[in-house]
Structures are given as C-alpha cells and as structure tokens.
C-alpha cells in the first residue's frame, strides 16, 4: 500500500491522544471521602477485570478511529504513490515504443497508430492542471517534448508526429528516462505510461535492470503498460536478412548473381513472396523473382542477378512485397564494385627458367582461376615479383599483397634476397590504410628474423610471433581441421562440404609455430591443425588486415596447394575478404554511428538521410584518442541510405552508408502475455489495451486504487462500534 499524501500519516500520532488521556485521566482525580468503602471495594473486586477489558476495547477502538482517520487523510492507494483520484492533477510520463515491430499492421491500423490514439485519449481524459513528458524508446530513448510539461497541445502535436525507427526494442532506456522524469514532476500524483507491443526482447535484453527500474517506478508512480496490438492476431512477416555476392568480389563487366536471404518470422506459411533487387535504385536494374513458399519460422534464399557497370560503392537494395511489418521488407547494402583487383605477389623462391617451379605457381593459379586465354580479361590482375624487385612503389598500385616464402631481409638466407627496409616500412602504412597482406611461410622464413622485422620486434604486422618450425613424422603428417574454422570468419565456409573433406585430406609436412597471445585482441586464430596448433591467423591493423598462413603456399611443405577444392576457395575467400574490407564499414545496422574520415576537412559537413532531409553535422573533429578528423552521425535510427556531403554541395560527394534495420526486432514478433510480464517484473503493473476504451479503464483504475473512501467508511464503522460498545458498557465518557 502507498499513499498520495504520506505526510499526513503523521496524523497517526494522534493515536497518542487517547492513550495519553487514558493515563492522564487516571492521574487526574478529585478526592471524595467515602463512607461505604466496603461496598465500593467489593464492587471493584467484582468488576475490575471486566472493566479493564471494556476499557481496553474502548481504548483500542478510539485509537483505531484516529489511525484510520490519519490513514484516510494520507489517501492510501493499493499499488502506487502517484495515483490520484479522477479529479487530481496527474504528472504523466509517456514512453512510446517506436521500434520496428510497432509498425506491424494489426487490423486497420499499425500498432503505433493505436498507441497514438490511446495516448491522445489519455491526454483528453487527464484531470485539469496535469503535466506530460513524452519520450520515445527503442534501444535508446529521446525526449519529444513538450517544452512546458503543462502544454498538452504541444504534447498532442508531438505524439501525432511520432515516427517509427528501425531499431530493436529495449525498454530499459525508456524506463530509466521515465524514472528520471518523475524527479522533474512536482506533483504527487504520477503515472508512467508505456505504449508498446510488449515484445519479449523489450524485457529480456536486460531483464534484471528492467525489473529493478520498473520497481523503482512503481515505488513512486503508477506503471501502466498499454498494449498496442492484439497478441492473438498472427502477424505475417518476411524479413530481408542479408544480400550477399556468392562469387566473391563484385566487379564490372558482367551480370553478377546476388543471394537475397529471407526469413519468415511469422507463425504462418507464406506463399508467392515477390523479391525485387535494385542497384542504386535504378529501375532498369530491377529484377523480380517470386518465392513459392516460405515456411513459418524458416529462412530461404533467392538468387537474383544485376549488372554492375560502374566501379565504386554501389547500393544494392533487396525488397519483398509489403507484409504486416514493413520495417524489414527492405535491405540496402553498399557493395564495392571493382573494375579489377590488383594483387602484388612477392615470391621468395622465384624460378625464372620454369615458373611452375617457383614458389608462387600455385598461388598465382589460385588467384586467376581461369584458362590462360581469359587471363587478360579477368578482373584480378596479379603482379609477381621476386623479393629483390619488390619496391615500395609497387604497394601504391595494389589492393592485396602476398608474401610467399620471402626472407624478411637479405641477411636471413645468404644468397637469397629478402625484403628491403623501405618495402617493410611502406607495407606497414599500406596495411594501416586498408590494404590486405597475406604471409605464406616456408624455409626462407626464419622465425626470429621475421619476429624482429615484421613481428613484435619490428613492423608489428604478424598476428602472432612465429615459433620454431615443426616437422611432422612422414607417416603422420599434420592435417588441417576444417571444423576449427572460426565461426563468422571469412573461412567459415571451409566447415561446409565439399570444402571440409578436401581440406581435411590435405597433408602438411612442416609448419611454423605461432606464439598465440590470448591478450592480443586484434589477433585471432582462424583455423587450426588437427592437433589444435594454429594454421591460419589474422590480425587487424588500422583499416587493413594481415593473414598469416603457418605453412607454405607452394608444395614445399604441404600438398595443400594440390587440393584445389580447398586451396583455391581459401585463397579466393581470403582475397575477397581483404578486397571488400575497405567497404565493410559502409554497411551498418540501425543505431550504429556512421563515421567518415574526410580527406579535406575545411568546410562543415552534412548528411542526407533516407528521407532526403539534410542534417548538418558541423565541422570534422578529432575524436578523443584519435589522430584524424572525423565526421560522425549518431542518429541512425532509420534504415536506409545515408550520404555524407560537404555542406552546400548539391550532389553529395562523401561516402554512402547503408543502414539496415535491426533484425532482432522482427525475428520474434510475439508479445508477452500479462502473466508473463508479471512473472518478469515480479509485480503486477496496470495493463491497458489500446483502442478498447483505455481512458475509461484508467479513470476506473484511479478510482479503484484510492482507498480513502473505504477507509473513511471504516472510520465510520469503527466509530459506530465504539459508540455501541460504550453504550453496551454503559459508559459514555
């Protein structure tokens, strides 16, 4: 039980009055000389116990009357402090769930529409002099207004203009902000309304914190959960989960396949789902395909093709036909399209007489897996140079560099040229600026020298420092373990057939060990041998990445290059990964900040949002701990294409970012039942249903929760009881 006017509980101290009177009265008496004392004493003897009992009952009843009176003045409520009667001014805090699922069409209106209607209805029924503070909440919260909490018209306007986001639900930020808003409310009658479809993840992402915050709100106000949507009604939804390029590196000149990943997140099977693909939003590139059936809860893929004529970042958009939840019907991806990929291969063991004997023979064929006649037209251009010809300038015109069994310096192997210091220095900058580096080992790789030049003692390019070579017994060679391929890494596909079997059949006679340091956060082992020693590792350095392969890229230490079913895809996946890396930062999920490092930062910048609105971002600044000036956009609540531009430029010249909706939101669209919410919160909030006369329920709830009338009735009853008892006892004081 809580009280609307708890200060008046002090009136309960009045219970001391009858107690004091009781004892004070005993202490105050008048003297009377009395003759018939023997009869008086006899009467006292006969009645003292009964008298005492009657006195105490009477005293208790009088104390109870005063206590109940104080209780009534304090205006008890059954659940919360802040609930006033129908006529009491209320300080209301509205928290609107604007996550993508609130866009679900539930009958004629969306859930958000129902929330708006319910909120406006609540405002219309607020008692005079009430205040309102309106917040939106998805996985973050923002204050919508009104500037003056008493300006209900402004609050109505803000509510009418509420917009959906592509964010997922997390009620904690909204609840925390509502709790803070209660501090700013001056009145004693407080109500916090949460307009939401009450999805499970809203409560489950941070369950303990949500529960604690709800309890804090409950202790100071009434928590009203307004259910916007019918939990019994099935929502049909197909989400565009991803768009990938199965052939690796998107390039110009040919029609490329794109795989659109779909998932039916609803509870009913869907038939005839049309999927459309666009490139840069151009209708000419539009292609549509129909999916006959997607089973409930199941994913599926659709392959569509698009012709990419121009190199550079291109926006590929996949759409499905509009269903009940439009928020995830579209997915944009910025795809880096290249005219060609330039690869520099530094060969540590060149053989000018017979290139097939050189150390890069297998590697070159893996990089250009086409017949000799098509090599010139192939989009991957490979430049193989011996170590002594590997000048620093070559790095300026390549995207990825391979070091195949190259000594780290001329002194490593007398007679065998190694990397020059200039080349190493330039290689370091190359990687930091976003280049890809693949290091293959061999007998020219001296661990100590490599560690000193390229490892922790030098350029710091190695994922882990190298250890001494390990040679396998002839009858028990090392074998790669494809199932150890790191999940979510670019080598993850090696776990799948047919790559897994072929990879596992490979034999490695010798390999260099790696001194794995778990503390190195930017490094990671991507694949291991069957004995769990590292085979392939990677390290992120600046914008670029280094991949270290413990064995050779030729047949000197292993027969892996001869297993084309494993070697070729590994090289291809590595090349694709390192090539696309530069564009990876352009694809974001709603809510993630967009950061651009402009080459020139003299003018202020702006961003064109998916809605076509230009938002000023100001000048580029150097972030704390950073070295370069960056422009950052933090408000990416809506999915779509964001284009950075210099302020004043008609055509955006900055990078294009594709922001995808947070698909966690629509992965499970089911709402929690009232009992499930009670179970999670540990108490019963007030449940209301939007669109079903919620305002009436609120008024009833306000009336119902205040016990003042009942307590006053109790005062009356106890007072009557006291009078009757006093009359029965024959003693009216």
């Amino acid at each position, binding site marked *: 039980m809580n009280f609307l006017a708890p200060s008046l509980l002090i009136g309960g101290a009045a219970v001391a009055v009858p107690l004091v009177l009781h004892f004070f009265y005993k202490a105050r008496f008048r003297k009377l000389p009395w*003759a018939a004392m023997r009869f008086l004493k006899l009467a006292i003897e006969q009645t003292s116990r009964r008298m005492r009992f009657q006195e105490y009952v009477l005293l208790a009843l009088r104390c109870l009357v005063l206590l109940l009176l104080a209780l009534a003045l304090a205006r008890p409520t059954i659940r919360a402090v802040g609930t006033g009667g129908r006529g009491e001014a209320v300080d209301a805090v509205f928290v609107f769930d604007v996550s993508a699922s609130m866009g679900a069409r539930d009958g004629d209106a969306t859930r958000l529409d129902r929330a708006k209607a319910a909120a406006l209805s609540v405002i219309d029924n607020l008692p005079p002099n009430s205040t309102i503070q309106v917040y939106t909440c998805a996985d973050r919260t923002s204050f919508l207004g009104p500037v003056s909490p008493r300006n209900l018209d402004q609050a109505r306007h803000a509510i009418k203009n509420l917009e959906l986001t592509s964010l997922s639900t997390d009620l904690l930020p909204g609840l925390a902000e509502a709790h803070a808003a209660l501090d700013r409310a001056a009145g004693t009658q407080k109500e916090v309304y949460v307009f939401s479809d009450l999805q499970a993840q809203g409560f489950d992402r941070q369950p303990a914190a949500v529960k604690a915050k709800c309890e804090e709100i409950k202790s100071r106000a009434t928590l009203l959960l307004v259910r916007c949507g019918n939990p019994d009604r099935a929502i049909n939804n197909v989400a565009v989960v991803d768009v990938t390029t199965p052939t690796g590196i998107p390039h110009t000149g040919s029609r490329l396949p794109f795989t659109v990943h779909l998932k039916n997140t609803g509870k009913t099977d869907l038939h005839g789902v049309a999927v459309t693909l666009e490139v840069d939003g151009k209708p000419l590139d539009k292609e549509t395909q129909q999916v006959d059936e997607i089973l409930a809860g199941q994913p599926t893929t659709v392959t569509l093709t698009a012709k990419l004529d121009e190199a550079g970042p291109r926006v590929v958009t996949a759409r499905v036909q509009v269903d009940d939840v439009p928020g995830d019907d579209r997915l944009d991806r910025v795809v880096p399209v290249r005219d060609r990929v330039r690869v520099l291969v530094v060969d540590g063991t060149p053989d000018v007489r017979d290139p097939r004997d050189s150390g890069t023979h297998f590697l070159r064929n893996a990089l250009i897996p086409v017949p000799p006649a098509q090599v010139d037209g192939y989009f991957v251009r490979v430049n193989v140079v011996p170590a002594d010809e590997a000048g620093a300038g070559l790095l300026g015109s390549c995207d990825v560099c391979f070091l195949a069994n190259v000594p780290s310096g001329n002194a490593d192997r007398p007679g065998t040229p190694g990397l020059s210091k200039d080349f190493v220095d330039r290689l370091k900058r190359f990687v930091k600026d976003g280049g890809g580096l693949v290091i293959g080992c061999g007998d020219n790789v001296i661990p100590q020298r490599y560690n000193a030049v390229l490892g922790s003692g030098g350029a710091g390019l190695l994922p882990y420092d190298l250890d001494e070579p390990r040679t396998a017994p002839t009858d028990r060679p090392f074998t790669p373990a494809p199932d150890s391929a790191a999940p979510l890494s670019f080598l993850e596909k090696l776990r799948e057939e047919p790559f897994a079997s072929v990879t596992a059949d490979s034999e490695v006679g010798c390999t260099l060990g790696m001194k794995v340091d778990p503390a190195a956060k930017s490094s990671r082992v991507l694949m291991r041998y069957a004995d769990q020693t590292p085979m392939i590792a990677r390290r992120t350095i600046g914008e670029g990445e280094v991949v270290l392969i413990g064995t050779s890229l030729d047949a000197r230490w292993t027969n892996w290059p001869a297993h084309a079913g494993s070697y070729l895809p590994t090289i291809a996946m590595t090349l694709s990964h390192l090539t696309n890396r530069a564009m990876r930062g352009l694809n974001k999920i709603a809510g993630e900040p967009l950061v651009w490092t402009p080459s020139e930062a003299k003018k202020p910048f702006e961003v064109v949002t998916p809605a076509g609105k230009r938002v000023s971002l100001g000048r580029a600044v150097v972030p704390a701990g950073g070295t370069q000036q960056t422009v950052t956009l933090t408000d990416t609540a809506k999915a779509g294409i964001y284009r950075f531009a210099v302020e004043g430029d008609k055509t955006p010249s900055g990078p294009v970012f594709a922001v995808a909706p947070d698909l966690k939101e629509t992965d499970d669209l089911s709402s929690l039942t009232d009992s499930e919410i009670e179970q999670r919160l540990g108490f019963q909030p007030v449940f209301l249903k939007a669109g079903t006369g919620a305002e009436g329920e609120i008024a009833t709830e306000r009336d119902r929760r205040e016990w003042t009338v009942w307590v006053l009735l109790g005062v009356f009853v106890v007072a009557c009881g006291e009078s009757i008892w006093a009359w029965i006892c024959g003693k009216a004081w």
Partner: protein
Amino acid sequence: MASTLLQPDVLSKAEALGLQARHVVEGLRVGDHKSPFRGFSVEFVQHREYVPGDDIKHIDWKSYGRSERYTIKQYEQETNFIGHLLVDGSNSMRYGDGSANKMQYAKLLAASLAYTVVKQRDSAALRMFDSAWRAELPASSQMGHVTAVCKMLEEAAPAEKTGMGQLLEEFADRVARRGVVFLISDCFDDLDELLRGLRHLRFRGHDVVVFHILHRDEFEFPLDGNIRFQDLEGTEEVVTRPHLLRPAYLRIINAFMKDLERGCDAARVDYVRMPTDRPLTAGLGEYLVRRLQRAKK
C-alpha cells in the same frame, strides 16, 4: 428550645402523632403504654380462678354471686417507657454536606425523637457510640432533659469506625428494663453482628427501631469522573471511575439494605430507611403514622 436540632415542623408533626411503644414496655409510673405487669390497676383485663395466697380483696364478689366460684379480677397496668436513643457517631456518619450530612440528619432525628418521647411523658436516654460507647445521657422525662439531649448531640463529633454489633449486645445485657430502642445509624458494619445485636435486644424484650440513615449518593451512586475515594473510617484510598462501577455497586448496596431489612423483619425490628435528602418531617412522619396504624390493629 433554642437548639437548632429541634425543628418546629418536625416536632409538631411528631408530637401530634405521638410515639406508641409497639411492644409492652416497663415504666416507673402510670403512662400511655402497656406495662408487662398485670395487676390490680384500673383497666380490667380478665378473670382467673382464685388460688390460695391471693389477696382476698381482689375477689370479684359480683362474679361469685353469679357463678358461686371465686374468681380474681385482673387489671392491665399502664406505664411509661424509656426511649433509648442509640446514635451512631462513627466517622462513616460524616458523609454528606449541609443538611444532607448523615450525622446532622441523625442528630436531628435523635433530637426530634427525644422531644417526642419526653413530650408524651416518657423518658428518653441518649447514647452515642462508634466502636465503643462515647457519651451517655441517662433517661429522664423532664422537658429540660431534651435540652441536655440536644446539647450532647450538638457537641458530638464523629470519630472512630463503626462496631455496633457487640455494643448492642452489651447494651441489651446492661439495660434490664424493657424499653424502646431507637438505633440511628448508617449500619455500615458487619451485618451478621448487627443483626445478632438487634436480635439480642429483641430477646431482652426491647421494642427496637432501626433508623437507617443513608445519603442518596450511597444507595444511588450517581457519581461521575475520576475519583479518589478516601475511606472515612480508615486510611484506604481507591481511585476509580464510579460510573463504571455503578451497576455492581448498586447491586451490592441494595443486597445489603435488603438483607438488613429482611433481618430486621425477622427479628421484629422496625426498619426505617432515612435518606438524608428526604425531609425529616416526611420520613419520621410516615414512620410514626405507620406505627400508629399498627398499634391500632
């Protein structure tokens, strides 16, 4: 007659009604009251057979002439009585204010009775007591004796606690001559002892009248508030709220009064309750009328 104890209206009424002894009393002279001594006085009562030894002058010759039998003519002797006024002078009689004071009321009653008794040529004796005899005025039928009675009454001040049962027995044993005993008291004493004393008096042949002097507070208990009751006959004090006790108190006091009245009836003792707020004229007058009516029967 200068005493304030003698109020004209009371005396005139009492004088008019007179005070008849209910039972035979023994007196020293011819009076208004029957003497226990049958003899040869003026009022014929009966005949009896002559027996040797009788004085022959009492033989009724007329009867002999008619019946030829010797019969003796007997006459009833009339005498005066002594009205013993036993007045309770214990501390419990101090209760009440002004004219409603029990002691004052008892004094008025005693003086009125003394006057009435003397006025009809009977003798009145006064004894004050509490737990012992405190003052005593021998019997006299002289009118001036009334003044002495009044003087003694006026000088009497309550003291000590009541203990009349033993005193009554002692009195009965000491006073051989039968008379009328007026016990004027609030009777706040051990009831059994009191009744034993009364029975003893009756056994000795006294005509006993108990005037039960009570203040209205004592039998109606109309008290309110928080009161510290101080025992008039002791040091005990009780703090209580009397209105809470009223039913029990009234039940107890009424039972006491009823037992006293019933005990008096059983011992053929006149019991007269005299609330102090009731005019003495009315109270005494009513009793005297009743007594007169009984005497005529």
